């Protein structure tokens, strides 16, 4: 997919600037190539969006083409946590804990309206977190309710683009600010 | 090539191992560790047998077979020993020798 077909290139440019706009070395790009092509997700699905995540893994859409099929149940071995579904007040500490227990480098995809902003449960609900970015730092937001599997794939590609900007030695813990 | 190493070296190693085993046997209180010490002792004996066989009667296999049977017997012994340990454990929830013999059956 071509660069200009992607959305939100401006933010990506911004990230590049923040990174000092230094050219990546060969080693960096090799590592980023590895990282971006092997994003193992944690099995973390709380509700409806999880079903579409499963659908994305199934034959029709085949997540595995991106090398992502290795769903790990243990956060130690996962790279990305796809928050697929509503996160409630009771669940938030769990999510945070899971995120904390993941090994660096780690990424978060907020999938679906609930994960982005609480979605349908934004108003009048007493038990829903209004967006998981209050709990963990989110790298990519995929709107939809639920997003269709292609949208998830698209989000993953966005994440890959973001990973490709990383430099080997500026991997600070993003959760330090939290 | 082997002749570069004298037989006595093997014997020294096995002796040391034997006495280390004895040390463990005497100082350890846990039944399982005692079992391990016994395994060390048996092993040192095996080394002796094998070394003797190789250096003294290389054409025969007595030492070799002796070790073989020792290993087999050790296995059977370990099986029974562990069965005993487990049954002791189920009785006392403990496998310290000292505690075990002070407790009443």
């Amino acid at each position, binding site marked *: 997919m071509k660069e200009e077909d992607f959305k939100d290139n401006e933010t990506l440019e911004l990230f590049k600037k923040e990174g000092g706009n230094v050219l990546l070395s060969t080693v960096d790009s090799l590592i980023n190539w590895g990282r971006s092509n092997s994003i193992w997700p944690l099995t973390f699905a709380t509700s409806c969006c999880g079903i579409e995540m499963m659908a994305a893994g199934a034959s029709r859409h085949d997540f595995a083409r991106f090398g992502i099929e290795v769903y790990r149940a243990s956060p130690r071995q996962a790279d990305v946590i796809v928050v697929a579904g509503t996160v409630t007040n009771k669940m938030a500490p769990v999510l945070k804990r899971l995120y904390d227990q993941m090994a660096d480098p780690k990424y978060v995809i907020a999938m679906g309206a609930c994960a982005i902003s609480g979605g349908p449960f934004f108003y009048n609900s007493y038990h829903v977190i209004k967006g998981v970015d209050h709990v963990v730092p989110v790298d990519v937001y995929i709107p939809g309710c639920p997003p269709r599997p292609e949208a998830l794939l698209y989000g993953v590609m966005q994440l890959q683009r973001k990973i490709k900007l990383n430099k080997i030695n500026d991997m600070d813990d993003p959760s330090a600010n939290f | *090539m*082997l*002749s570069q*190493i004298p*037989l*006595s*070296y093997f*014997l020294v*190693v096995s*002796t*040391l*191992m*034997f*006495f*280390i*085993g*004895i*040390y463990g046997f*005497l*100082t*350890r209180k*846990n039944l*399982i*560790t005692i079992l*391990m*010490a016994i*395994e*060390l002792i048996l*092993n040192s004996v095996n*080394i002796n047998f*094998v070394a003797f*066989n*190789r*250096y*003294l*009667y*290389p*054409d*025969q*296999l007595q030492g*070799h*077979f002796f*070790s*073989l*049977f020792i*290993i*087999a*017997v*050790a*296995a*059977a012994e*370990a*099986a*029974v020993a*562990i*069965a*005993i340990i*487990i*049954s002791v454990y*189920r009785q006392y929830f403990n496998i310290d020798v000292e505690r075990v013999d002070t407790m009443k059956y």
Partner: protein
Amino acid sequence: MSIHELMFYLFSGMILLFSVLTVTSRRILRAATYLLFVLISTAGIYFMLNYQFLAAVQLTLYAGGIVVLIIFSILLTSHITHKFEPIGIKKMVFTIVAVAAGAILTITTVLNYGFNTVVASSQNPDMQLIGGSLLGYGRDGYALPFEVISVLLLAAIFGSIVIAKKEKSK
């Protein structure tokens, strides 16, 4: 230094080091792991002496069998945070002295004894030979022990089942 010497020193060093660790380690599973290393090094010595079958038996039965069994029982009876109390200094010194005395005595005897070593062949006894002797009846045959082993094993099965299966005697 030939490869053989190198290996001998390596293996005997490992044996001694890990045996000491086995009997002194305060964590039981570590002790078992060290024991495993001792046994593997012993197998290494057998390999070096070219008794390959014996070495493999050592690996299978000792390392793969007995140690596994020991680890199993450790998993039941001990917890990861469990440590042995260090033994009293007095007892330790006493034991060490006694053991060292014994060791020195034996070693001096061993070193002073003149073995008439013959290293005619460092041939590996091949399986045909081993099998032949194991099944043979004659002077070098071990057919009887071979069958006795089976009885021994039978006894071990009976014994361990009876002992371990004993229902909770309340």
